[in-house]
């Protein structure tokens, strides 16, 4: 964790956020060449505010880069899946609410999981109670357990989290239909 070495991760986040806000300012102002002094003040203020409001957390660039194509592909699948169901007579859906035991600890990683889950094919985060995520599934014939476990692994890789209860076999064993 970042507590061990205080200065390096903070410096790294400072440099990273400075770059990101500079890029953002550039994008918003078509290069930011008209008012460089004003832009610099804005970029510095934004960086200072962001460091004050959101503490640096460890994260992995490789984990993030691996996540992007996965997310785009799953978005495509999720959109196609729900679109054909919306067009067909019926419509062909068989919803169920499942309880998934989360391995990710509370915090940013878990919030990220809740949000991304809504964009994956056929799943929707309804509620978190204790360490369980209530997932509304559009089609119960899908093996949602495996997909959720895989998503959790990918998010853990981004936030450099070691999932503790990995001994539990991923899949249906950790999924119980709501009574």
């Amino acid at each position, binding site marked *: 964790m970042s507590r061990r070495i205080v200065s390096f991760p903070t410096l790294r986040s400072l440099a990273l956020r400075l770059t990101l806000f500079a890029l953002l300012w550039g*994008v918003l102002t078509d290069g930011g060449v008209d008012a460089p002094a004003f832009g610099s003040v804005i970029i510095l203020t934004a960086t200072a505010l962001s460091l004050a409001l959101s503490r640096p957390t460890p994260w992995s660039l490789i984990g993030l880069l691996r996540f992007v194509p996965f997310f785009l592909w799953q978005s495509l699948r999720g959109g196609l899946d729900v679109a054909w169901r919306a067009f067909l007579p019926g419509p062909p859906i068989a919803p169920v609410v499942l309880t998934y035991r989360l391995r990710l600890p509370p915090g940013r990683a878990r919030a990220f999981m809740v949000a991304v889950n*809504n964009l994956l094919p056929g799943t929707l985060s309804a509620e978190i109670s204790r360490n369980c995520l209530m997932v509304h599934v559009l089609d119960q014939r899908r093996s949602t357990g495996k997909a959720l476990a895989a998503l959790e692994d990918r998010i853990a890789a981004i936030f450099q989290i070691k999932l503790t209860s990995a001994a539990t076999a991923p899949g249906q064993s950790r999924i119980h239909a709501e009574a």
Partner: protein
Amino acid sequence: MADLISAFLLLGGVAFFLAGTLGLLRFPDVYSRLHALTKADNLGLGLLVAGLAIRSESWFAVGKLVLIWLLVLVASSFACHLVARAAWRRGIPPWT
């Protein structure tokens, strides 16, 4: 060629927005309707952004378009969760 790809992407985007709206009208309960809205609109907007990015005149415009897509994704996904959670806490049973 670029115009053709762009037109294809834009029409695809429109089709997914149509699918999302159709799902909103046709699906039986609040949870299923949320599925249709978030996922179809995410993809629909993504395709629109891709189609417009091909036509855009500068990289700054492309950056702005991608930024819009990301911000809408974050907002719609969390809004979806909050609506579902509110329904769940009110005890609205899922259609089965």
